[in-house]
């Protein structure tokens, strides 16, 4: 009973904190865009090269409150953001939310397939790191994650294109949304992420293999696979939930460059276009939405984590919980 109310209290506190962080991320982006260089939207509108007539400019200035003090502009923008209004694009005169929504599916497909690639590669590496012949196989394999962390997604992407598109003709970059092209883009985006996950996973597997219960299980005569699956892999795999949540930022940021290389349209190309045409409302919207996605995914991971880990269930039984510890009584939650 007590634990349950503790979990709910923890969940509410985390939720409130997440909302604050999202609002602050919006504010921070707003300040970077609008305050540091000094009213860029007005400057961009007044630049004769951009071809805005005074009749075009007036409604835009009124809409964003550009003649008002910065704090009031922030208030206008923030109160629109809260109800899901992301403003109007300066270039296309369309609502930004529509632009984002139409760009989102392609990026979502790319990011999720990259995540799938990352997980498969990381799990394969982790499995092999425990089961290959120790001396050469494992030693070499353990170098791989650290090595692929040093290779940025754009280099992997270009290499994949050079080798598989131009040499072997497995996909054509002129049709970037085909299955094969998407798969290779996902590999380029996913490999650096897989390296991070694999590093943590391998470290955890090594840690579990040194535990006493692992030796006990082995001396009970369990098969190698059973030993790996139940006593080594299961406790090691939980931190992957947190790793996935943290990787979301990298997948979103990396989609910018991956989309550019593979010629895909999506959130990344939307941002790139907005940056080169100084379409600040679009930049503002995408960055704050990316922050919101990151915060929400991490919130979910934090809230789900205690439910997944049986050790956190029993550990809190029968003693007063520590203040900064995520708690849960799954028995209570399950009811």
């Amino acid at each position, binding site marked *: 009973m007590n634990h349950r109310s503790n979990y709910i209290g923890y969940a509410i506190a985390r939720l409130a*904190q997440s909302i*604050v*962080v*999202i609002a*602050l*991320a919006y504010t*921070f*982006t707003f300040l*970077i*865009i609008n305050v*540091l*260089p000094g009213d*860029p939207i007005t400057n961009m509108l007044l630049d004769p090269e951009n071809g805005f007539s005074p009749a075009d400019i007036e409604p835009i200035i009124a809409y964003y409150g550009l003649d008002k003090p910065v704090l009031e502009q922030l208030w206008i923008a923030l109160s629109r953001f809260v109800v899901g209004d992301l403003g109007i694009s300066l270039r296309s005169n369309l609502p930004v939310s529509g632009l984002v929504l139409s760009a989102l599916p392609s990026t979502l497909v790319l990011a999720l397939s990259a995540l799938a690639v990352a997980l498969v590669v990381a799990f394969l590496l982790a499995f092999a790191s425990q089961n290959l012949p120790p001396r050469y196989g494992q030693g070499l394999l353990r170098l791989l994650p*650290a*090595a692929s*962390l*040093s*290779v*940025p997604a*754009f*280099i992997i992407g*270009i*290499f994949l*294109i*050079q080798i598989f598109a*131009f040499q072997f003709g497995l996909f054509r970059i002129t049709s970037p949304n085909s299955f094969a092209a998407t798969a290779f883009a996902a590999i380029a985006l996913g490999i650096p992420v897989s390296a991070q996950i694999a590093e943590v996973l391998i470290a955890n597997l090594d840690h579990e293999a040194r535990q006493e219960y692992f030796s006990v299980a082995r001396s009970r005569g369990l098969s190698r696979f059973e030993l790996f699956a139940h006593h080594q892999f299961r406790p090691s795999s939980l931190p992957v939930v947190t790793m996935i949540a943290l990787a979301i*930022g*990298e997948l*979103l*940021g*990396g989609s*910018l*460059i991956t989309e*550019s*290389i593979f010629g895909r349209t999506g959130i990344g190309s939307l*941002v*790139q276009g907005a*940056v080169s045409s*100084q379409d600040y409302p679009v*930049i503002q919207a*995408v*960055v704050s939405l*990316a*922050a919101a996605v*990151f*915060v929400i995914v991490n919130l979910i991971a934090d809230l789900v984590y205690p439910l997944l880990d049986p050790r956190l269930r029993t550990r809190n039984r029968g003693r007063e919980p520590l203040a900064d510890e995520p708690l849960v009584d799954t028995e209570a939650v399950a009811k």
Partner: protein
Amino acid sequence: MTLLIPTPVTRRRTRFAAWDVPLAVILSFLFVTLVIAWSLFPSLFAGYDPYFGDTSRKLLPPSGEFWFGTDHLGRDVFSRVVHGSWSSVTSAAIAVCIGLVVGGFLGLVSGFVAGWTDVIVARFIDVLLAIPNFLLAVVIVSSFGFQTINVAIATGIASVAIFARVMRAETLKASTSVFVEASGLLGGSRWHILLRHILPNAYRSILALAVLQFGSCILIIAGLAFLGYGDPPPAADWGVLVSNGKDYPSSPWLVFAPSLVIVATVLAINRISRWLRR
């Protein structure tokens, strides 16, 4: 059993172990030194003018004369890589300095001064962590203007959060330790505790992080330059070289050579960081 081992022996052994640097780390140091030498004295290493091309020898594959081949204007790619290392290396160094100073300060304040200061700074760190690094850098560059120096500043601001987080964790860890409590009880002032106990304890992990960040800043800067947010060509920043090279798929060395240098540099830096952290 262990009590019987005489102390001088263990001392000598640990001192020997301190010099016992793995071969990979020595090679990494050598390579990073070479890259730094390239950036400081490019004309010692580059045999050709990096900006002037001779079209009679364009798109030549790598050979004894042109180690990395030549590009579409007949410029020696190796000379361009060597000359480009200055902007790549100094940008990354500026970025790490910004991250280290600003992030380190924020983390130290937040970890050492409890209460509202900590709450506010911790939320600010959360905000910086929430915005994807690369996107944050893109936004800052787009509002500062497309120049390599702005790319460096943007990358630095984007790496503030990670420094602040590690510094805060280290400060919290050290300031709850028994020796800090003892120092406080003996009458040590807050400054004394900060300078004598907390900073020396945080030093090692912050140093390892700074080295690691140096590597990832090189990657972020190359990525931004690749997208064209740095100085425009004929600047020879490594990311620009890769970006130019990708337009000539029939001359793959234009991409492979600068990519190889980027990856080897970051690999060496990461190996050094790993060794520092051990």
